[in-house]
């Protein structure tokens, strides 16, 4: 608890900004969802033949896992891309369903005798709707909005994965650092926000009830809601408009590299920098770069070649040039390597390696039939991943490899849940958890040199960027990177501090 308070004290401004983003994401998406969902519900209640397919459609949107929905939206024009807009679209899609459904059931639940009398007294359809149906359905509609809001507070944490910010930033960052304090720093306020929104809307339910609501209650509530949303908006605005946006993928090394880039740009230029660290994986980051949502991030040559451009590996020596050419044709400039090759490391427990006398991947074939393997999603999918590896070395495991989150894989290996995995050669946990790297003795993996990739248009507009980033070229060794990764993953230090200290040493 005190560790959490200390974290908040140290990151006060940022925490408030994230909280503001979160409130704005939820408030705006719920407002839009209500503006769409209530009329849609009224329409559906009037046209029972259409109600079913409509609700089916809304149901369908609900069944798409949130992360997948964000993924689907990224490549779409206008509503897609990364950042707040896409998050709002996704959150709205999720929130519309409960609102439509409760609007329909609220309207259908109105006593038929009441409606008959209303019509027989000469009320127009409009009058019946406004004076009878909506007030009587209001508690149900509000219940729908309440459910949608609480769900939205939770789903909005995932918006962090596409760079919309919010409290999810801490949750994702904490997950990649395996640091419960940081996870809690995001999860706790998110939970409190959900409870607060729930309570506020429960009060709103009383206020719209003609029987229990009083004028002062309604007024107080409306004021409170306006203040909360305005506060969120103000905190949100507190994010300065940035000239340069630095991105990163969603694992520790990437976050550190993102900080290194951001700090370097801040030190060497007068440009304001926005950090959009912890985006999703390769495809999200690449899409962000191409759409201009992100100006620069660090990619790995082998990854770009095989997984992004879908080209065969060919000769290791030519990989770098080939990738530079491919990027250039897309309007992206690839700068020279920062100095280390973050190749895939095939990892086993060091004691097991000793016992089985394993030094290289080719030794693995012997024990594989008795062993269990587990890999990150990406490694199982990518062309330079598991399939090619198994073919190149003739590997057959006891069972199909398990799919695991990249951030948990090292601990799973160390704990003996799996026996083999593929990690990053520069990962700080390799040493600290007592793991061993098996040599790639058949040169299966291409080089994965860490290279900054930057939007060429941005580079032309701000030539000082090139000079700034080049101060990092060739300056980060694999050992440096491993040490920095360990400082964050193993010693629980802030990526920003670790990056800053490193920059001081290479000055």
């Amino acid at each position: 608890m005190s560790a959490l308070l200390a974290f908040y004290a140290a990151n006060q401004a940022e925490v408030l900004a994230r909280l503001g983003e979160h409130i704005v994401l939820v408030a705006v998406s719920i407002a839009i969802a209500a503006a769409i969902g209530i009329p849609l519900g009224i329409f559906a209640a009037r046209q029972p033949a259409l109600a079913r397919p409509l609700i089916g459609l809304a149901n369908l949107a609900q069944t798409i896992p949130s992360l997948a929905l964000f993924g689907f939206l990224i490549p779409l024009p206008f509503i897609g891309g990364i950042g707040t807009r896409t998050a709002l679209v996704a959150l709205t899609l999720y929130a519309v369903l409960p609102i439509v459904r409760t609007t329909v059931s609220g309207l259908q639940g109105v006593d038929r005798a009441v409606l008959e009398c209303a019509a027989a007294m000469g009320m127009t359809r409009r009058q019946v709707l406004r004076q009878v149906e909506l007030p009587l359905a209001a508690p149900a509609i509000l219940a729908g909005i309440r459910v949608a809001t609480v769900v939205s507070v939770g789903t909005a944490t995932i918006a962090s994965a596409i760079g919309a910010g919010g409290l999810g930033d801490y949750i994702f960052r904490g997950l990649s650092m395996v640091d419960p304090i940081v996870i809690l720093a995001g999860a706790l306020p998110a939970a409190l926000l959900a409870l607060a929104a729930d309570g506020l809307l429960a009060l709103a339910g009383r206020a719209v009830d003609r029987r229990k609501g009083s004028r002062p209650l309604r007024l107080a509530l409306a004021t409170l809601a306006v203040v909360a949303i305005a506060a969120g908006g103000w905190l949100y605005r507190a994010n300065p408009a940035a000239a340069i946006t630095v991105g990163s993928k969603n694992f520790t090394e990437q976050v550190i590299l993102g900080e290194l880039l951001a700090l370097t740009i801040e030190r060497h230029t007068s440009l304001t920098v926005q950090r959009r660290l912890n985006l999703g994986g390769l495809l999200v980051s690449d899409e962000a770069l191409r759409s201009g949502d992100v100006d620069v991030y660090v990619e790995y040559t082998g990854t770009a070649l095989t997984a992004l451009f879908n080209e065969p590996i060919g000769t290791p020596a030519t990989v770098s040039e080939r990738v530079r050419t491919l990027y250039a044709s897309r309007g992206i400039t690839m700068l020279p390597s920062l100095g280390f090759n973050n190749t895939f490391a095939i990892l086993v427990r060091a004691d097991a390696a000793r016992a089985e006398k394993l030094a290289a991947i080719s030794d693995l074939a012997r024990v594989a039939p008795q062993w269990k393997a587990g890999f990150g999603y990406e490694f199982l999918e990518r062309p330079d991943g598991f399939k090619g590896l198994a073919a190149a070395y003739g590997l057959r495991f006891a069972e199909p490899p398990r799919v695991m989150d990249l951030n948990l894989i090292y601990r799973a290996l160390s704990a003996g849940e799996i026996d083999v995995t593929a990690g990053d050669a520069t990962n700080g946990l390799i040493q600290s958890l007592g793991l061993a790297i098996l040599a790639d003795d058949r040169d299966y993996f291409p080089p994965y040199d860490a290279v900054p990739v930057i939007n060429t248009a941005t580079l032309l507009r701000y030539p000082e960027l090139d000079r700034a980033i080049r101060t990092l070229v060739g300056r980060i060794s694999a050992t440096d990177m491993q040490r920095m990764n360990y400082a964050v993953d193993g010693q629980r230090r802030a990526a920003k501090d670790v990056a800053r200290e490193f920059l001081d040493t290479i000055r």
Partner: protein
Amino acid sequence: MIEFADVVASRGERPVLRGVSLSVANGEVVALVGRSGSGKTTLLRLVNRMLHADSGDVRVGDRNVAAWDETELRRQTGYVIQDVGLFPHFTVADNIAIVPRLLDWDVARVAARVDELLTLVGLNPAEYRLRWPDQLSGGQRQRVGLARALAADPPVLLMDEPFGALDPITRAELHHEFKILQARLPRTVLLVTHDLAEAFALAGRIAVLHDGRVAAIGTADELQRSEDPHVKKLVETRFG
């Protein structure tokens, strides 16, 4: 005045009225009796255009109902049903005030009318004005429903089993109130009931509907002397 001339109507595919002719004079109370499904309610609802006839002529005042503006027609016809249909989110006073407010009466006139009507149906305004419908007994709800239907002084009153769900004592009380109201300011009333005694007590003439047609029509005395088999059966089951 309400007039039906050779009216044919159906609910969905099912023919309900097979040629009904009937007229109700100004200030007259006509009861519609008959078994369930005989078409009583359908006939009633043709008057305020809650339903439409397939053919034939339904007239209110000097015009066919189709020639009326629907809203105008409905504000001229008070409507009372067994389920009452009070707005649960309106107080007693607000329920009674619905039509006057739709007609844009000023506040003082509405308030005065509400109190007048509550007194008329035997409810103390000071006590009942601000009650909610669910704080009333069944009989009290029926009284409020009646007051609401009378609020803007409609010349025509359509009543569908208005006293159906009440205990005998409350029903007798309401019958009494109804007769006083009708004596003070006679309205043209069409009353649907399955209770022949009620029809005899309240209506000047009674129309017996059978199978979508008027089997007989007349005063209580005339019906009791009728030789029509349907009427005889109805009278016998009621008075044994």
